[in-house]
């Protein structure tokens, strides 16, 4: 229990520190930080809209947070979740359009498989490149993000757009590929709120990732590769295989964002739909201390901010929704520079003890 508290303490300090820095920025531009923060956070707590939309926004962030987590646990930095989820979402829509007339019993699993496979394949590419040629996954995933965006934009524009539609989006997927919105089951939650079954899938994915990493041989081998590659290799683990496996699993998780957006929300592929989900996933994983439970908490926090950003934009005088990105950046920077806090707190402790003497 004390261990858990200690795990929670540091991310909490980072978040509070980020809010303080953000508050100073808000003061500097001439607004009241308390008013701005009340708009930012308060709006997420209303029922049904605030809570419904917050959970809806949390869904993709849980998936991408898990994706980055699996990479980190293998010692890999997957900056490519953004590209993986684009490929996956397009693949989902492609299956949903091509086999539009199938029954839901067939089409829903097929579309889910398309999302998972699409993400897994795009994620495995940098894995293979690293395992086979030793080229750095950070560079390759950055490059593959841009390639993915261009590729799906090409297919959307030239092959799957409804003729005459000025918006870059595909035609609709078949009804058989729709998954239910949670409003169908929860009284008081209207179905216009796009929170859907993918949210439950995200929670399930957290459990599965936990079981996979900490309760299976594969997970053990991935974590060994991440914590000490040379010892792992000495112990007979094939590092290359773990890298490819971890990147494929990571990509598959990122790909599930496609299930949420295409099958549960828009019912089509919409070009540029991702609100930086892949990059926010980095923040989610880091703040969640690379643990599935932490990922859920961090995803909820960022979802609250994302939802509140709209209200800040509408109701405050100077502060715009950009404050969300600013807070996110500061949080990651603080989490990354954990040593900064240790140094800062340690220095204070030193001066205190010096005074006591």
């Amino acid at each position, binding site marked *: 229990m004390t261990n858990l508290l200690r795990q929670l303490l540091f991310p909490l300090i980072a978040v509070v520190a980020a809010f303080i820095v953000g508050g100073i*920025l808000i003061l500097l*531009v*001439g*607004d009241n930080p308390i008013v701005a923060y009340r708009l930012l956070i308060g709006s997420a707590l209303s029922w049904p809209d605030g809570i419904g939309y917050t959970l809806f926004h949390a869904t993709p962030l849980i998936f991408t947070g898990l994706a980055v987590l699996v990479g980190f646990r293998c010692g890999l*930095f997957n*900056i490519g979740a953004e590209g993986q989820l684009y490929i996956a979402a397009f693949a989902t829509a492609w299956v949903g359009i091509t086999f539009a007339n199938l029954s839901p019993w067939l089409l829903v699993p097929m579309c889910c498989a398309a999302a998972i496979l699409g993400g897994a394949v795009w994620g495995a590419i940098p894995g293979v*490149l690293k395992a*086979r*040629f030793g*080229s*750095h996954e*950070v*560079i*390759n995933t*950055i*490059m*593959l993000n*841009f*390639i993915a965006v*261009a*590729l799906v*934009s*090409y297919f959307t*524009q*030239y092959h799957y757009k409804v003729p005459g539609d000025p918006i870059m989006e595909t035609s609709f997927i078949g009804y058989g590929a729709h998954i239910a919105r949670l409003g169908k089951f929860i009284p008081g939650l209207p179905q216009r709120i796009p929170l859907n079954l993918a949210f439950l899938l995200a929670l399930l994915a957290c459990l599965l990732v936990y079981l996979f990493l900490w309760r299976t041989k594969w997970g053990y081998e991935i974590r060994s590769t991440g914590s000490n590659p040379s010892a792992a290799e000495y112990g007979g683990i094939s590092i290359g295989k773990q890298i490819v496996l971890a990147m494929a699993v990571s990509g598959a998780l990122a790909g599930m964002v496609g299930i949420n957006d295409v099958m549960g929300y828009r019912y089509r592929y919409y070009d540029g739909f991702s609100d*930086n989900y892949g*990059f926010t996933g*980095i*923040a989610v994983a*880091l703040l969640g201390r690379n643990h599935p439970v932490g990922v859920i908490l961090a995803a909820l926090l960022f979802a609250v901010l994302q939802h509140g950003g709209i209200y800040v934009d509408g109701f405050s005088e*100077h*502060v*715009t929704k*950009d*404050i*969300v*990105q*600013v*807070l*996110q*950046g*500061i949080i*990651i*920077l603080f*989490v*990354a*520079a*954990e*040593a*900064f806090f240790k*140094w800062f707190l340690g220095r204070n402790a030193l001066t205190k003890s010096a005074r006591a003497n």
Partner: protein
Amino acid sequence: MRDVFTLSLIASTIRLATPLILAALGGLFSERSGVINIALEGKMLAGAFTAAAVTYAADTRLHMGNASPWVGLLAAIAASTFIAAIYAIACIKFKADQVVSGAAINILMIGIPGFLSGAFFLSSGSTPQLPKDHLLPQSPVVIAIVILLIVGLIWYVVYHTPFGLRLRSVGEKPEAADAAGVSVNRVRYAGVLLAGVLAGIGGAYLSIGQSSLFTRNMTAGRGFIALAALIFGKWRPVQTMLACLLFGFTEAISIQMQGAVKLPSGEDIPVQFIQMVPYVLTIVVLAGFIGSSRPPKALGIPYQKEK
């Protein structure tokens, strides 16, 4: 007619490659010293926004006229170097993960310009339009000469000065450099700050050279293309410049063609495939399919002095 078309394509290549060359050469100083620089994008954004905002203020409030873009440029350098300093302290002093900190800087810099322009210009992320005659010089000939001078200077510094030797040795074998009396961290601070200076100029050129205002996320991935060019150019100044020119050329083509490029056989190449070229080439080169591109050995590893 044909000649005019070619000339304008060359001019546009030079114009588009300029910010890439500046940012990539900045990245070269940082990476050659052993510090990964995926934050070039964020630094360019800082430079681009500050340049446009300060030029506007200098022009309208202080009535500095023709001098205002130069004030804007200096402010851009200061802002981008400030961001680089935060990055340097996080990575070098506090040994934070370089990729994570870089990603943080990039996310932060998507937010900050929008936040500030919302507050100061009551806009949704862009600065007001600047008058056309209060911008940095845009003549391709002038730019080409300046760029060649800068590349030449950097080549000389990296290969023919004591600082360049220290820079390279710190990025390859920090222990050996340390043993020879070089302060590893001081050289790395210099490398990262120089990256800030150059990326800031590159960003400024985007907003007050190529265009006349800052728009939301105006770099649109150019910081990453610069990073790609640095890798494609094998972390060497002249090759990196050539890579930037190649990537600038692909951008020039995709702009000039407005949609699709016609092959002599009459078939179209969709613009998306031309946009992919820099990224695909970088992956191919990094994997060693066309020659090999080997990063500095100590890239990304914080230096821990032995006690």
